[in-house]
């Protein structure tokens, strides 16, 4: 059953070396939880995370990388969108301090669907001849295994994250979470061993009792724990509630071009928030 707790206890559930799945910046990214996680990293309480972006990363990934929390990154791309390159990601790759597993968007969706269905792999069209395949020793090109002369096809092993993380406008008191048409969040949660969710608010009702709400709901059985975090996606936007803080993200893009600037950003916007000094 879903537990209701606070942001810090939610962050404490994430352990060293775990595989975390994180949706893109436009898809309800749990920025407040990411900041809580960075505070834990700074305190030496979590390290060497394996981050999976579903399928691309942005500010959240860049900040986790900049804070040194990420050992391995699997992503189809990392970018700050209109604000340009993701500076800490770019720097880490060029410095050789980040182990990259470069992928492509539909490959990440497909590998999560394989876990969702409980199968060891799934095929995907395309990809053949891309250097991505050359450097991914876990991907396998096979001749049409149906033996129907369909030609070669790439098989992608299932990816099973330890934790899926996301933010949502609302949960109900039963632990059901509204995901609307952001259904990649359902696939992420289905594929993952656990899901940690922050929400703007918890509503005293049951989303499943109204067919209209039920259609956009992720059932509580996939949701491990929920914490309330108002404006929990800031500086990213949240559908229908608040817009992306473009100025803030542009300022980050500029400031984080150097390690020093990034450290200043953390001081001003991450480490200043209520801490977790007594955390486990």
């Amino acid at each position, binding site marked *: 059953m879903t537990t209701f707790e606070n942001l810090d206890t939610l962050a404490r559930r994430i352990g060293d070396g775990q595989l975390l799945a994180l949706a893109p910046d436009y*898809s309800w990214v749990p920025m407040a939880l990411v900041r809580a996680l960075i505070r834990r990293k700074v305190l030496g309480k979590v390290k060497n995370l394996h981050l999976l972006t579903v399928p691309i990363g942005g500010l959240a990934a860049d900040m986790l990388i900049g804070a040194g929390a990420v050992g391995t990154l699997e992503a189809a*791309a990392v*970018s700050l*969108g*209109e604000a340009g390159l993701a500076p800490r990601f770019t720097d880490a*790759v060029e410095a*050789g301090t980040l182990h990259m597993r470069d992928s492509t968007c539909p490959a990440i969706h497909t590998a999560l669907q394989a876990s969702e269905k409980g199968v060891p792999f799934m095929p995907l069209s395309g990809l053949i001849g891309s*250097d991505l395949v050359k450097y991914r020793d876990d991907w396998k090109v096979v001749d049409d295994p149906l033996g129907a002369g369909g030609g070669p096809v790439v098989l992608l092993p299932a990816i099973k994250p330890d934790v899926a993380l996301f933010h949502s406008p609302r949960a109900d008191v039963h632990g059901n979470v509204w995901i609307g048409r952001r259904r*990649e969040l359902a696939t992420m949660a289905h594929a993952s061993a656990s899901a940690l969710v922050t929400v703007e608010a918890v509503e005293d009702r049951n989303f499943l009792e109204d067919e209209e709400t039920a259609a956009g709901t992720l059932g509580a059985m996939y949701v491990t724990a929920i914490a309330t975090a108002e404006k929990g996606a800031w500086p990213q936007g949240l*559908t229908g509630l608040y817009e992306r803080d473009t100025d803030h993200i542009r300022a980050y893009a500029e400031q984080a071009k150097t390690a020093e600037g990034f450290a200043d950003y953390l001081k001003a916007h991450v480490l200043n928030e209520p801490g977790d000094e007594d955390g486990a």
Partner: protein
Amino acid sequence: MSEVPYKPEELLINTFAGLLDGVGHVAVGALSPIPGCAALLAQELAKQKGRDVQVSIIHGDANNPFTDGGRELFDCAGQGRIGAFFLGGAQIDGEANINLLGVGEYPDLKKRFPGSFGSAYVYFVIPKVILFAPEHSARVLVEKVDFISAPGTSPPNVHRPGGPKALVTGKCCMTFDAAAKRFTLVSVHPGVTVEEVRDNTGFDFDLINDVGTTLEPDGERLALLRGAIGPKIAKTYPDFAARVFGQG
């Protein structure tokens, strides 16, 4: 020169819209205001001829018909329901291989770009992929890409209903012939010479017999673009709309 002054973006939008003629469904990825405008313009032009064109803009909620999560764009393309798509490339070579990932020898890159996004898939399954290189230089248009995010062509035994059909840069338009694995220069933008294109292109290419000048948008077209398309694209790209069309 066109009788009405226009911005370089407006020439590109007009050019892309021409390439989209006859396509039933155009999808536009993230960070693509110029392709987005071109798709909306092609839709408007088709409507004038009594035809419906669907435009799906992935980024944001306006003009976004997808309700099945991040995978639906790719599934939809795999089903053959998307006719055209745009791809960029930090490097593009003469065989239409594209590199969105980085410069140098992988994994020890000298310069890292964001990554391959969905290119390794959509380049295979969408029939008309239009390449876009705003910066036309030998740095972008290289002899051989350092990293193949997606290959321009495939052996005959590989299932590939899609691939590159054209390349539009800041200087010219080219078409791509998959059998010959070569680009052909079709037109240069106003004020650009064939020589200049050759000097700034790192790969060898063919020329059509009579390389013309890229068609400029006339007053009517510009009015349509600024009057009808500007407000639509402003829903997704307000900054772009303000800068190019003075909208928003």
